[in-house]
């Protein structure tokens, strides 16, 4: 399908200044274990974990401190020490959530996670159980429990695993540095994932500005055991939002995921590179997800770095390790600057899904208000889905959000490319969100009437 080729090659995408140079050359550094961690019981999409410890208990790093409930995942102590409190605490995205607060004690030894000699021969259910037990969620930002994504819904058949190394958000380099540092862990994890979902083929998608990472993965592919799987590392154009599932799957396989559908619809499962590495640790060592790599960067921090930090570390501790804030820092973004969210404060914990902490200067994009749509059409060129943010926005402004259905509002996945290019500084993502929720409500009302 030639149209898709074009999209994969940069039509309907944008090319923001990558701004990755501050941290791209910096290897991952281990953050010294912090004196305190704050571990929210909700760090994933699904039911909150249930505390398995009580105030005053001594816990070891690696010990399970909250059990999985319903469709959720468990939670582990990421530092050794004592449970100081189990209480409502600040959460980066949920504002507040119950959390287990640990105070560190260097005298408490961490749990050891020796290799399971039979790790290559485990059956599918055992691997899934270990992945769940390790508390693994999608580390690319979505934080969807990985074991659920790997349990295919009935009737779904898949033939390809896509491993997402297309870190397209400006500023972020955590996946890039991980691919350079631990390509073997990623490839081993990908092989395990392929066995779990039962596919013969793995495609790694790496952007063209990270060719050294692609080369590292390629070398790791050659080194790791031949297991009959077909592995291929492919370089895709460095455009935004190349790392979005729909874009990456189209670029790698030529298959188009229909609107509002998941990659299953085109027989593909997508996993992020960091998730693959965590899966390897979980299956091979039964090691839970205790740390994650996070890029702390932006003009608002003195010394931008790539850190491996325990989950639950306060963002202020991350910033302090990076030399502190600059005098001009005004904004804090959790995740990448395109799809991440602004935080009002730094005394919130690093959660499993947070791949970046970007400290920005200057005024926010919409602080100075916005102008009328002048129908310049830039958003039409930017939208990777061929939607019409201009038309949606003027209907939402006119109080006619439900009339925006023909322009694709419901299909938007909020990559922000339209708002990035809008010369009138219009908050197009928010207009699309309003339209989406109005359309959802309309559908529900119709269903209620019909039912």
């Amino acid at each position, binding site marked *: 399908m030639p149209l898709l080729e074009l999209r994969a090659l940069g039509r309907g995408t944008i090319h923001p200044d990558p701004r990755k140079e501050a941290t791209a050359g910096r290897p991952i550094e281990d953050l010294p274990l912090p004196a305190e961690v704050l571990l929210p019981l909700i760090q994933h999409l699904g039911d909150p974990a249930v505390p398995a410890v009580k105030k005053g208990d001594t816990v070891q790093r690696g010990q399970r401190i909250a059990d999985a409930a319903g469709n959720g995942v468990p939670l582990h102590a990421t530092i050794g020490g004592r449970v100081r409190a189990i209480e409502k605490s600040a959460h980066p995205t949920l504002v507040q959530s119950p959390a287990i607060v640990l105070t560190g004690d260097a005298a408490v030894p961490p749990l050891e996670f020796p290799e399971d000699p039979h790790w290559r021969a485990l059956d599918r259910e055992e691997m899934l159980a270990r992945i769940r037990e390790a508390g693994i969620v999608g580390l690319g930002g979505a934080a969807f429990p990985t074991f659920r994504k790997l349990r295919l819904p009935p009737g779904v058949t898949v033939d390809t695993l896509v491993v997402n190394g297309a870190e397209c958000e400006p500023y972020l380099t955590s996946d890039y540095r991980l691919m350079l540092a631990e390509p073997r862990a990623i490839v081993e994890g990908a092989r395990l994932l392929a066995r779990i979902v039962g596919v013969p083929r793995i495609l790694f998608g790496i952007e063209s500005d990270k060719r050294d990472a692609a080369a590292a993965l390629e070398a790791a592919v050659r080194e790791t055991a031949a297991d009959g799987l077909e592995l291929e590392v492919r370089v895709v154009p460095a455009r935004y939002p190349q790392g979005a599932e729909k874009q990456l799957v189209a670029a790698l396989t030529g298959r188009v995921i229909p609107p509002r559908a998941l990659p299953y619809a085109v027989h593909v499962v997508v996993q992020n590179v960091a998730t693959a590495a965590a899966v390897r640790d979980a299956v091979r060592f039964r090691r839970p997800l205790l740390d994650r790599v996070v890029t702390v960067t932006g003009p608002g921090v003195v010394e931008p770095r790539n850190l491996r930090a325990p989950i639950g570390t306060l963002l202020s501790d991350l910033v302090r390790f990076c030399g502190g804030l600059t005098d001009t820092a005004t904004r804090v973004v959790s995740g990448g600057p395109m799809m991440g969210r602004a935080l009002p*404060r730094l*005394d919130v914990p690093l959660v499993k899904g947070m791949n970046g902490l970007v400290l920005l200067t200057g005024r926010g994009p919409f602080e100075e208000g916005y102008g*009328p749509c*002048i129908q310049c059409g830039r958003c*039409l060129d930017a939208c990777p889905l061929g939607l019409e943010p201009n038309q949606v926005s003027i209907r939402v402004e006119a109080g006619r959000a439900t009339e925006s259905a023909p322009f694709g509002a419901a299909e938007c996945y909020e990559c922000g490319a339209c708002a990035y290019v809008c010369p009138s500084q219009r908050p197009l993502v928010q207009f699309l969100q309003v339209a989406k929720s109005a359309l959802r409500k309309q559908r529900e009302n119709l269903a209620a009437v019909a039912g």
Partner: protein
Amino acid sequence: MSEAAAPRAPFVVTPGPHLRTAESTRAIMWWVNAALLPTMAWGLWVFGPPALEVIVGAVAGAVGAEALANRMMRQRLTVKDGSAVCTGLLLALTLPPLVPWWAALIGGAFAILLGKMIFGGLGYNLFNPAMIGRAFMMASFPVAMTTGWSIPRAWYSRLEAITTATPLGVMREHDLQAALHLIGGPGGWFRLLIGMRPGSIGEVSVVLIVAGALVLLARRVITLYAPAGVFVGLAVMTSFSGAAWLHLLSGGVWLAALFMATDYVTSPATRPGQFAFGVLIGLLTGLIRLWGGYPEGICFAILIANAMVPALDMWFRPRRVPATGAPS
């Protein structure tokens, strides 16, 4: 909790994306104005102070009317966004140099008030405001608008009678030969190209209009889809008239194709739509010039095509990901 967090919080929280392009509507509008300067300067050199009066009148009328409308509608002042200046300037560049300054002033004010502000201001107008102003002046000051043409450089030579006719006007009244005679017989094509001929203030120099448009192309402010359509449409319609070259090189077609058919607000948003819009303008211009009541037809052609834009936006849509066959 942590000491480092305390002093700076709370940070500014705004919705994403948190990065954006440096481009702004205001910058775009002022670039368009800047791109019109070469042809404006040429108009001043060729037609002298009367042209300056017209330009000042039209721009003052447009800017004054916008400020007044802002006041009356209790809006913040929008004249700094450059779009009122742009409307006034574009209108002036399409006027005969000997039109009275006060007529240009009224035209500029009318263009903004009834061409733009009454629809809700920038972004909401259906018709090109400058062309609304010109159409209004055609109806209100028909004599000045059809006879206010000046012989190039005549003002400087202190000629008694400096009024003349335009090449298209002569061709309409007489024939192609007479039109060619007006622009100077042999070598006339060259004078037509550089702009040493009677015509509207800013329409005469094809070379300088193109030079300005090249700046906008280089800055990606405009694309060539609509202009290409205009030339295709006009060439098709006039191909059998025997004077296609004169049609393509004269009149306001270059100014209109590069600076009016490319106006964001009053043209379609997609590229195929823009091309179709251009073709429509070209065909209508040819139709009016060959069989209509005016020697020059591009003003009305643009206005009619403007009315088609909502339909063109519905017919020419971006290509979406197909929704068919989704097992979801």
